[in-house]
């Protein structure tokens, strides 16, 4: 098949050709970037928290008329109240273990700070590493299902308590493997000391866990998403959070038992619908915006591809209709059906080819623009290449029906007057 007649014919339809190529280019640019955004969102949502997320729920409750945590006396009273709650929850038949905790991964309520090799380092210093703290007790690892990979877990004797605002030394901590590797790249973090929040008192690392995400899912947290530090301390304030692991399959039953049990311990508190929620709810809530955005982008891409395909079908159909007689002449002069089919397919390949060539440039340009206006990274080449192949395939699929109709034009039309 010679390209010359195709090019000559296209020159007669300059405007239409340019418009289809332009449409292909714009579609490619938009779809590539949209799919890239969808991919990023999916990657975010699929991040592993490090928890065993099934059979886990969180209780957030608040006491009414609780003692003031500013005085030592008040702190002791609050701690007693918290320990009473923990004991009552731990006795429930469906509960496997309970740990007091200030937050959970994906909860977006965090206490962040920094850790350093050096004592007294400035909070905003360059050699500091950002971290998020989990204040909890010795049942934390079993409750959250976090795996210890080195050193030891907390025991009951390690656990201190303090008022929420009090500043206390933190003699020991467990950190995540990611944080350990950052601080001690040789992999020998256990037994080493670090300094938290610019303190002069050393904190000895007694254990390392495989993975534990920080509570924040915001973009500010992306840099230190895995840098968690566990401190064996119960925080005392007029509110408390308890992470509860239930026996397998007993999640609903255990959740239902929480409110009556806690009210029996102390009725002066507020527990509402939001106070007891399974981890699956926390996860859904944390990522609902990402999931919504991914779905919206996906739907728009799909419609966009359909519109473009329909446009190709429409325009090619017109051309086939317009060239009805010429096709008949070609057939009468000996062209086979398949030659006519190929003619339109190659014509489409040429137009779409030019379109995607411009489209790749547009896609990269759009990506650059998005990078300068939004939080976005450079689009990886495989996305663009996949987009190019997809556009070529869609072009061929869209042209097939009108091209086949063209190939079915009988040679006899050549003899009829138009």
């Amino acid at each position: 098949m010679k390209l010359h007649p195709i090019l000559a014919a296209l020159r007669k339809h300059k405007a239409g050709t340019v418009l289809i190529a332009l449409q292909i280019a714009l579609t490619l640019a938009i779809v590539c970037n949209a799919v890239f955004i969808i991919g990023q969102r999916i990657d975010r949502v699929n991040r592993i928290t490090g928890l065993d997320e099934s059979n886990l729920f969180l209780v957030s409750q608040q006491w009414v008329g609780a003692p003031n945590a500013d005085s030592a006396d008040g702190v002791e009273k609050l701690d007693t109240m918290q320990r009473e709650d923990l004991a009552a929850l731990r006795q429930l038949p469906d509960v496997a273990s309970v740990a007091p905790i200030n937050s959970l991964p994906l909860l977006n309520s965090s206490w962040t700070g920094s850790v350093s090799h050096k004592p007294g380092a400035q909070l905003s210093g360059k050699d500091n590493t950002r971290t998020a703290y989990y204040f909890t007790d010795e049942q934390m690892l079993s409750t959250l299902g976090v795996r210890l990979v080195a050193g030891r877990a907390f025991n009951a004797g390690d656990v201190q308590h303090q008022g929420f605002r009090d500043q206390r030394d933190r003699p020991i901590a467990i950190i995540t493997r990611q944080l350990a590797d950052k601080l001690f790249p040789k992999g020998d973090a256990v037994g080493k000391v670090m300094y938290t929040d610019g303190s002069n008192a050393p904190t000895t690392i007694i254990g390392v866990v495989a993975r534990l995400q920080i509570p924040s899912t915001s973009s500010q947290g992306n840099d230190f998403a895995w840098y968690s530090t566990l401190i064996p301390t119960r925080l005392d304030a007029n509110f408390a959070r308890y992470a509860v692991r239930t026996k397998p399959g007993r999640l609903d039953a255990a959740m239902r038992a929480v409110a009556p049990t806690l009210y029996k311990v102390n009725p002066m508190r507020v527990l509402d619908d939001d106070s007891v929620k399974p981890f699956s709810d926390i996860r859904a809530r944390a990522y609902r915006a990402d999931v919504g955005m991914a779905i919206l982008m996906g739907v728009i891409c799909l419609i966009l591809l359909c519109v473009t395909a329909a446009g190709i079908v429409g325009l090619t159909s017109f051309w086939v209709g317009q060239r009805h007689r010429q096709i008949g002449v070609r057939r009468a002069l000996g062209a086979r059906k398949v030659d006519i089919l190929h003619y339109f397919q190659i014509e489409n390949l040429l137009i779409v080819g030019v379109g995607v060539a411009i489209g790749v440039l547009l896609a990269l340009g759009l990506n650059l623009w998005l990078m300068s206006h939004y939080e976005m990274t450079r689009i990886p080449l495989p996305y663009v290449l996949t987009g190019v192949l997809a556009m070529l395939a869609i072009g061929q699929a869209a042209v097939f029906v009108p091209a086949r109709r063209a190939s079915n034009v009988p040679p006899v039309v050549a003899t009829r007057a138009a």
Partner: protein
Amino acid sequence: MFGYYLDLALRSLKRNKALTVLMVLAIALGIGASMTTLTVLHVLSGDPLPGKSGQLYYPQIDPQDIRGMDPSKEPPEQVTLIDGLNLLRAGRADHQALMSGGSVPVQPEQSSLDPFYVEARYTTADFFAMFDAPFLYGHGWTAADGEAKAREVVIARSLNDKLFGGANSVGRTLRMAGTSFRVVGVLDSWQPNPHFYDLNTGSYAYGEQVFLPLQTMLELRLDRNGSSDCWGNGGGGVGNILPSNDCVWLQFWVQLDSPAKAAAYKEFLVHYSQDQKALGRFQRAPNVRLRNVMQWLDYQMVVPDDVRLQTALAFGFLLVCLVNTVGLMLAKFMRRAAELGVRRALGASRRALFAQLLIESGVIGLVGGIGGLLLAMFGLWLVRQRPSAYAALAHLDLSMLFTTFVLALCATLLAGLLPAWRACQVTPALQLKSN
């Protein structure tokens, strides 16, 4: 002539139904998607207090210690308690209010209602006048009552409905956090969007149920929430623990009725910073800002990035739909070259042909616009089903309705321009001969 052209256009559109549907659908989808996202953007970037927002300013000063100082950096986004009270008592503005958010447990007298938490705003007397909060019954507390830590409360209409059956509850007692408060006022429905005066509580669809004097809250240690940023040895600020004076955690708003007053107030903030530095409280050189409401919202970038990205995407989509329509219309018009040639040969001017073809594309634009409007309504309904805080606000208002139609018509007329112009270029003689 218009009626005749319209008739011709409808005939021509009927002749090729599939293509007409495709063009109308493409326009409708493009318009629908872009109007849905544009409406959401329009709602989210709206003025929370039209007519008043230009006179309301948010002063920022820099009380932080010398560590990590960078003169090009913005000062903190809130104020410390001590600075807030100093600025409040200086009284240099036409109105000023210091505030923070929190939640308090309400203990209803009716035994049928369990205690529940409501969102609270702790503020000072000028709040209501400054933000034009409408009173259904009663009025706010006076500055003297506020300073005297009065147990007085202004409640929202919805809470009044819930607790007092919607009756005038001024003078009645409301028990909150173990303390009895006297209701002095009931606000009519009032919910500025965005929640500009405190964006920490969430930017949209957030409304407080009770308003209490700040000094009363400080004395009773009621729970506060929102953000507190601390430096040095500052800390605290969770639950009923007040942040220390090395923490910023309050919002301070002023009303300045003229630009001259605003300039003078900025000057005052610089002097205040210098005085505090001389006293040894501040360590940094004066670093002040004075933004009005819209500048503040802009600086805080309250419109979510995702919403702006969606709008950009939708307009890209509209562009592709338009290019698609241009291509199809061009093919359609060019195919009628013979017919147009005959009309030209019979004496129709180029202008007449152009008008005829434009009317045809206008019809597509109009139908596409109506379709797009329906799709936008459906799209907004979908948005409202989503759980985002701003979802409930997504409604089409009159100006957006009008914009939709204008956009649809302009877009298709623009799309019809090139094909119509190209089709008018036919040489009648050539067309007649070739047939």
